[in-house]
């Protein structure tokens, strides 16, 4: 492995974003990737500037802990969900709650804008919100309609829905929406709803799926599935085959420590250029695997302990190799950068 090919990751701590008084459950980049929005168990949502490490704005109004966030493609609004079974649509500049969507019976774990941009239609990506809940349903909400009922409820799930992804067409393919919804849940199944084809594809993982991450470049083909059997799988979406496995007790890494994720939702991420897979374990260790060889690339092939508690969310900057966010249950968000050379 030559030096040029050496897989790197942002390993230098640039900022530690203190502010949340409880576990940080999620952190998301906005669509210009200049700001990030975090939601925590302290019922607050905070807008940060990861470059300067400054807190830009705090959003208070959620009654219970915030579990999921998503920012509209136009960056004007964002939506949050959490324990209170309601979905909120926030106005970013004013911090007002624009709308509330109610219908779930359980807490809402994750929320997503459809993000499928239709050419020529204004705000088309932010017109539909998908929410996955503990009540094992995915509800699809129409932001533009005044109707308070969801457009549709996906009831195929047998257990709590933990993660939703809406694959966009890759920029090489012209952007826009693929017309698909990918849902992962505790029932150990990744379901792909194809609106265009009218089909639903179930891929059984056989372990509670905590997060699914679509490949940024080839969302149609590749998906990363993290499950509670301490494994992160790279799956081929087209045929359901497994491309690679990371972590897990039977992982062929020679490292002494083993990746462990058995009870918390810890969102994994693709590294820059999809050359690596990033995951956090429940002790606050950061795992970086080579996507091809599935070997840890951290020094000494040991996980690097970056947080005190479980890492709940890893978000890598989509366009820059030198920025990464990790959120943890210890109440901090850390912004990582690559070593300046």
């Amino acid at each position, binding site marked *: 492995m030559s030096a040029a090919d050496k897989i790197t990751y942002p390993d230098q701590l640039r900022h530690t974003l203190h502010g949340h008084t409880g576990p940080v459950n999620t952190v998301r980049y906005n669509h210009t990737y200049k700001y990030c929005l975090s939601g925590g168990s302290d019922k607050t949502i905070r807008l940060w500037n990861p470059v300067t490490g400054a807190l830009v704005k705090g959003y208070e109004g959620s009654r219970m802990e915030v579990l999921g966030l998503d920012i509209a493609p136009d960056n004007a609004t964002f939506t949050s969900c959490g324990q209170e079974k*309601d979905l909120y649509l926030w106005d970013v500049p004013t911090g007002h709650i624009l709308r*509330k969507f*109610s*219908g*779930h*019976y*359980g807490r809402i774990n994750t929320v997503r804008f*459809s993000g*499928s941009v239709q050419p*020529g*239609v*204004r705000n*088309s990506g932010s017109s*539909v919100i998908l929410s996955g809940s*503990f009540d*094992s349903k995915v509800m699809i909400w*129409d932001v*533009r*309609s005044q*109707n*308070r*009922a969801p*457009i*549709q409820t*996906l*009831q*195929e799930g*047998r*257990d*709590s829905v933990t993660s939703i992804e809406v694959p966009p067409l890759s920029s090489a393919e*012209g*952007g*826009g*929406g693929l*017309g698909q919804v990918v849902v992962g849940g*505790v*029932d*150990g*199944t990744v379901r792909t*709803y194809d*609106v*265009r*084809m*009218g*089909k*639903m594809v*179930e*891929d*059984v*993982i*056989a*372990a*509670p799926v905590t997060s699914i991450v679509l490949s940024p470049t080839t969302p149609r083909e590749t998906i990363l599935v993290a499950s*509670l059997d301490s494994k992160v*799988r790279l*799956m081929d979406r087209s*045929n*359901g*085959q*497994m491309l690679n496995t990371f972590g897990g007790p039977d992982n062929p890494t020679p490292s002494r420590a083993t990746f462990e994720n058995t009870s918390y939702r810890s969102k994994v991420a693709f590294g820059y250029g999809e050359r690596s897979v990033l995951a956090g374990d429940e002790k606050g260790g950061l795992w970086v695997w080579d996507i091809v060889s599935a070997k840890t690339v951290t020094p000494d092939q040991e996980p690097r302990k970056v947080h005190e508690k479980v890492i709940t969310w890893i978000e890598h900057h989509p366009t820059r190799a030198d920025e990464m966010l990790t959120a943890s249950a210890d109440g901090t968000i850390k912004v990582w950068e690559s070593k300046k050379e």
Partner: protein
Amino acid sequence: MTSRLKKKLDHMEEQGTNLNESFCLIGTPLPSLADTKRDKNEFVPVWKQEVRDEQGRRRFHGAFTGGFSAGYFNTVGSKEGWTPSTFVSSRGQRASKTQAVEDFMDDEDLADLKDSRKLENTETFRSGEGFGTAAELGGQAGEGSLTSALSSLIQPSTSSIGQKLLMKMGWKPGQGVGPRLTARQLRLQERKIGRRAAHVGVLPSQTQSRVGVDDLDGDEEMDMDMGMGMGMGDARDKDGKKHTFAPRDTKLLLFDNKQDRSGLGYIRGGGMNLSQSQTQTGPSRTAPSEPQISSGFGLGGHDADEDDLDIYSSGPSALRDLDNRRTAYDRDEDDDMDHGVVLLGEGMVGADRNKKRQANVPRNEDPRNKARASGSAGYTWHDGRPVIPGFVVDINVISNDKWFPFPDIPEGWRPRPARVWQTNRRWDQAAVKKEEPVIPTGRNRPQMTADERGKALGEEQLKEPSKSIFDYMSAKSKERLAQVIPGDRQAGVSMEPEQEVKPEPAAARDGVIVPPLSPRTASAALKGFIPFGDDPAKQERYTSYLRSQTHDSSEPNPKLLPVKQLDQINKELSDFAKSAQMFRPLSFAMANRFTSSKLSAQDMVQPKPGLHIPDPNKVDEWKDKTRLEEEIKEVLTPREEAARAGMFGKMTRVTSDWVPHALLCKRFGVANPWPDGPPGSKPKESGAAEASVPSAGRALGTKPLLSAPGQDVAWQNNFVHQTPAESSQTEETAVPGEPPKERQPRNIGEVGLAEDVNQGRDTLTYKKPEMDIFKAIFASDDEGDDSDDEDQDDNDAADRMVIESKPAISAAPAPKPIADREYSPAPPPPSNLPIAGDIARPVFAPSAHRLTSKPESDVPKLSIKKKDKKRDRAKAKTMLSFDMGDDEGDADDQGGREEESARERDRKRRRKEEKREEKPREKNKVEVKPAVIDEDDEWVEAPPVAR
């Protein structure tokens, strides 16, 4: 002169005003009017003076500004002006208009008038004579007859409204109120009145005045009645048969208010030794002269045949008299027509009547009067001693209940309740024959078992008799138990749930004590297990004993142990009784709770005495055991097993049909993949609604991470209240693609919106009326084609493209990616070919062509394409479609419009031909399209055929 005036004026100004001048030399001057009441018009010449009313409106106007009050009270210049609001000509009916004073009054006057009015009772409704406060009435009563008679002469006769009403109903002054009576009844009534008057010592003054009135009236009946006298009863009886008489007037009962604080019956001024004579002439007597009159009347009222009544008699007759005392308004059950005066009491219930009777104690009927009426009886004890003055012996003697001695019980009688029960049962059976529900009450309830009762009630009989717990025991243990029972621990093993009332044991003859047993227990024990199987003789004795204790005691005396010793016999009998209580079956409900055990008692784990200390080794063992069980429970489906084995791919993948909502398709910008509704072939997997039924293949046995609610309906029902109507309501016809359960969840956000679950649904499924209707109404022929629904969409889309695209659109033949926001006219496909599947993106003919350069060759191509499009859509719905157009439901309604499409096609073809000539005229129409993109008018892309 002028200078003097001027000087005076100046002086006045100095002083303020001349009103301040005081000419008072003596006393205090009145307060000056200077500041408050200054006349504003003081220095104003007359022609300039203005008169204003209290509201400040000008009152008098000049001749040219309206005259007096400027119209009708300053209405000049107002909205009403001079015009009467409603002018009615009085020419035809000139004299009919009567003018009242109010017509000429203004608001203030009317208000004054209103204020001066006072609401009062009219004379008619003012309460007349006889109605008033107690003091007035008392005064009237005290005044006597003469004053009232005089006042009746002097005062103008005014009758109250009640009086008028009575007179309208046939009542005449002086008569009593009520139905007419026969002569005999009348006599009885008179006697009663007279008697009471005698007792009371007061003749009602009304009666007195009545006499006069009657005489004045000269009423024939009354004349006869009064004039003939009471002594001529026999002669009158003959006539009395013929005539009926109005009842006598009776005195209104009034009561004295007690106004002093002395005790009841206390007479002021009298000592303790107040004698009876003193009492009679006491100061509290209200009308000393009345007794004579009344007694005279009352005596006169007596006939010879009524001599059994002694008015002044004492003792029992007084008792009876007071018993009989009643007012004219009440009537008792024991009153026959002869007896009572039937008045208001006709419709009263007994309780009311009794109450009334209590309330209607005559006014002067206080104890001393009572005592006086009953002679000396109330004032002397039985032995003749006088009662303490001021007290009266209560005449209403409380009589003791009559006691009867117990009958002599014959010698050797033994209570045998079974006989009584037997009769009871017979009665019970008779009741059953009558099909009446037997309601057992209290202790009289016949002692029946549940089976018997069920039989009596005609219930379905149980197939097997109710079991005793001894049925579950082995015969050996039963025997053993039976051996043990005669011992002493009967109370400990008693399983009797209810306390039975046991008759007392009676000593039988020969000294044999047969312990009583409730027949229920006995009969139940007979049906149950019968112990003593080893000793048939004993068993027989046992059964005979039980039979003797049952209802039908055909053998009342049980067989006894053939021994001499009484105590042995008695012991056996008592053992029998205990055994019967032991072995009688439990009630059915109780017995159901027991089942035969698979394990014998020895197999059961015996609890160890003492404190339990868990063995640490065994705890781990136990944990392992439970863990093992959990793992065993985790049933893996084949797919999961494959996934566990890492064989991802075909093994783990299942593809099924899924029906997205039409609106979802629209929002995702794709065509509805199931425009004809969900595929019916696979109902299991097709819709979201069906997916709530867990299929076996999908049921996963994963250990739930977060105590999964899943699709547990019960869990959801904690949150949702679904009415059955909602759940049964499906709208498959309206929205075929949508699972019916879709909109069921009621959440808090919807609360308060409306009760309608389907609120807003009609907007989604709103079906636009056919364009034919619009055309028939609005359209002229030349704009026919353009107003077509689908074409409208085409134009909208095309127009939008025009707006958004750069002018370069005109010549770009090659297809471009969708992302480019330029749309170029695709080369029109040959008309005979259907649109190929790879033409996934819509092809638009930009209206720039139409607007700018419209070559003649273009138009037919466009029309051909459109035609093809329509035909294709009619054939296969997966082709390019613009159906989503304005409303979401259009795509769903496509199927319903199938049959109309042919007709439409013909019509359109016709129109297309017309359109060719009229095409240039459509320019204006295209140009006025709004520049703002309506978000609902989105174009929709056809699904790719295969991917």
